């Protein structure tokens, strides 16, 4: 079980969090014309790297804040966690 440092609450066990996927995905702006490919890329296509990954986590059984985590997907090492408005 991972130990994740919530930027608001501090270190907590993984079972307090839920995973939210790639942190670098940007939703196309509302009302903007987007091609099928752009939309598919946004909705369906994700990188699945072996190694460092920037991702979102949600402290659901805690402060209910979303935040960013930089994690190695192979070793589970967590390098850094940051608030959404901070750099990872």
């Amino acid at each position: 079980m991972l130990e994740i440092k919530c930027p608001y609450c501090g270190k907590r066990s993984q079972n307090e969090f839920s995973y939210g996927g790639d942190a670098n995905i940007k939703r196309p702006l509302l009302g903007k014309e987007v091609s099928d490919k752009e939309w598919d890329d946004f909705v369906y296509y994700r990188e699945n790297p072996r190694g460092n990954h920037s991702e979102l986590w949600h402290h659901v059984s805690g402060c209910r804040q979303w935040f960013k985590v930089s994690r190695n997907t192979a070793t589970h090492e967590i390098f850094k966690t940051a608030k959404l408005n901070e750099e990872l």
Partner: protein
Amino acid sequence: MSQKYRLDNIGYINRDKKISFTFNGKKYFGYEGDTLASALLANGIHLVGRSFKYHRPRGFFGAGVDEPNAKVQLYKGAKTEPNANATEVELVEDLIVKSQNCWPSVSFDFGAINNLFQKFFPAGFYYKTFMWPKSFWYKVYEPIIRKAAGLGVAPLKPDPDRYEHKYEYCDVLIAGSGPSGLASALAAAKNGARVILAEDKSRFGGSLLVDEVTIGNKKGKEWADEAISQLKSMPNVIVKNRSQVFGYYDHNMMVMFEKTRDHIENPNKFTPRQKLWYIRAKEIVISTGSLERPLIFGNNDRPGILLSSAAKEYLKVYGVLVGRKPIIFTNNDSAYDTAIEFKKNGINPLVVDTRTNSDSSVISEAKNLNIDIKFSHGIANTKGHLKVNSATIGKFNSDKSSYENLEEVSCDCICVSGNWTPTVHLSSQSGNKLKFNETIDAFIPSQSRQKESTIGSANGSFTLKQALEDGFNKGFELSNKITNKNSKSTAPTSNERSYGEHDKFWCMPLPKNKHYKRFVDFQNDVAVSDIELAVREGFRSIEHVKRYTTLGMATDQGKTSNLNGLQLVSNIEGKIVPEVGHTTFRPPYTAVTIGTIVGREVGKHYRPTRKSPMHEWHEKNNAVFVDAGLWLRPRYYKQDNESLEEAAKREANNVRKNVGVCDVTSLGKIDIKGPDTAEFLNRIYTNAWMKLPVGKARYGVMLREDGIVFDDGTTTRISENHFHMTTTTAQAVNVLAHLEYYLQVVWPELNVNVLSTTEQWAGAALAGPNSRELLSKLFPETNILNEALPFMGYKESDLFDVPARIFRISFSGELAYEINVESSYGTFMWEKIIEFGQEMNIEPYGTEALSTLRIEMGHVAGSELDGRTIPYDVSLEGMLSKKKDFIGKRSLTREAFLNPKREKVVGVIPLDKKTTIPEGSHLVKDGNASSPNPKLGHVSASCWSVEYNNPFSLAIIQDGKNRIGEKLYAVSPLNNKNIAVEIVSSHYVDPKGERVRS
């Protein structure tokens, strides 16, 4: 002393306390401090069970976790426990023990016939034999194999015992209380670190319990005892015996089970049987020691043949002789310790050593004691039916491929030693890539991946001096990283025997023309010939050899067999062991009772139960409850001998005719505030929200980004910047997370706050033509006439001085209202509703009637919003704004979603107007066509329409409404139903929606 094999003056058992127990129906006794194994051995019993495949007689082979053979069944009835390790079971009064895998008895076992036919049971036997005819598998082969497989018998009743979980945090967790573990615990604790020291046995000290060593000026055991009492007195230290650290998980999460009750004679009934500890440690010290490696020779599995370290442990810890005429068979010096212990206790052992010579101090000591040693010799075979009684010993030829001569030597036990294998399981589980150490011919940890340090013999350092130095250094170094106290303790001086090199030789040759079984893995009956066969048949990867032969599987996970198996594959393949590699070490290190893993999450404690504030009222009024997520909701209120269907009909009918009240507390409620709330809702919901007036509610549908319907509900504008959102019971939690995601991640510029208020409000829905009259009695001061409180209107008022919210919303399709009050007033509200509703013939209704009402109105719910449907599929296209963008809108123009053939919601009635269509039935053109019968759609929800008094269902079907009027068949092979049906509109009752506005 009446026990034949018990000595008077040696061991740590309490001879003042006799303990009686039953083994295979016969009464025996042992002493407090015995294990089941030591007590049986003291009574001269070696034969404990039968092997898995050939049913060969088997006895004790080890003295601890490494035991492959002595698996027994404990107790009877619900308390029974299969596959208990006799070497780890502590003796308690009235313990009931039975041998496993034998019938009618352990000494005469009918299954042993397999042994005579062992030629026909080679590796991969099942895969090869039960292939033909194919139809025999399910009916003949599988049931027979199932009956023959497995060792013990699982209990048929629920476990009566109690298990607990515990979470703990520390600076340094130390697994194993041998010399290196104790040393590191002392060093870390004295340097101020919070330490947990765990030992799987009941006694601390590891090898110090059995080795003739001194530390400082004390005997090893005395030093260990003092170290433990010192550690126990320190407030920063937790010392646990009977506690096995069995799993190393990510981020230094260690899992350990502690046996807390089985060894206690009269336990308090609230004492848990075992505790599961989740320990998050900043640093882990793995001081798990090493296990002795067996030697392989003909018929090396007979009772009486065991590890030399086990023989020494039985002697020194329990005062038990495993035999009076022992042969010590070794390829290294450490077995001489055992020989010396025998000799000192008046027994004359014969040492058979595969090496040509050795001249370390332990050999000189043995020679000085006149111990008989045969160098360059090996054991080719053994004899003895239920227990070994002789060994065939031979002198090796020069390349050890055969024997120069063979002689029979009588014996009553054989103690084998093939040197030591470090216990690297936890290190490997941590992600540490192991490396092969050619000096000790075993794998040891190399680069740590997590915060883990392996020390002592687990790391291949087999001398006491090294173990103590490593322990003190590591304990200081690790603790100082955390405490910075610089309080260093140094290792005391120590004295021990010196040991020479071992022989790199484990598998004895067979004499000419002999085909003795030479076992590698005792628990799975894997012999040398099986491994040879596997390699011959082309299995190269060690992982494949393992699965084909079952080498190293089952409860002991190859603790004694892995390295010998690898060595054999290496030899056959002409490779070296590191090239063959090793199989993966996975948790748990030893078998863990399922009850311990489950803990208290049993039965209804498996998950939390959520109850509405009116729950007690429902109970008192004969509600039959149903699980709705975590909630318990009344399904129906039973009257007399009503069935579910009858009650649902009665309750739904009363709503259509009079008035009903339904507990809707479980609906998700989210309080939303902030100046941008209307804009936020406008983006989240598919319809328009900017112009919703204060005091009005609106129905809304949410999509996922992929266009699938996510949830629906009503949201009410309480004031300009304050909204009250409702969600379905099932999605309440997910909707909140969804809203938080968009507010925090996607649109942080929106000034909106969301908060779950599901449990803060109790909700009651009044539905039916009499509901307005009832409402006027409940709120006599408030104008609730149609003009003042129209459909989708909202008012705040007092319900007999209790502040209440009134929403005019309807799920049933009838004139309906929903009243919310603070949860603590829920029952008050409910009782007032019932009291004033009497004259209007009010009846409470449950979820079954609720479903009936919504189905016949054609309102889609969870069974249609099943995670596969888009708004067009479920007649929600009217909810899609064309003027604005919203979450998921772009997906709706994807090609597949525009396909006119998509499955869409319709109504279905049986032609006979009698037969209820089972939910999940497939709709097909021809009910009698042979399979595969093309499926046009499926029935999603069924009810008995109280409006028309016949069955009605909703279905999702290709081409949807274009099929209205078509005659099809609803088939449900599971229910053996084939029903002729007609497709109708999904809006069966009040299609224009006039009632809700009346």
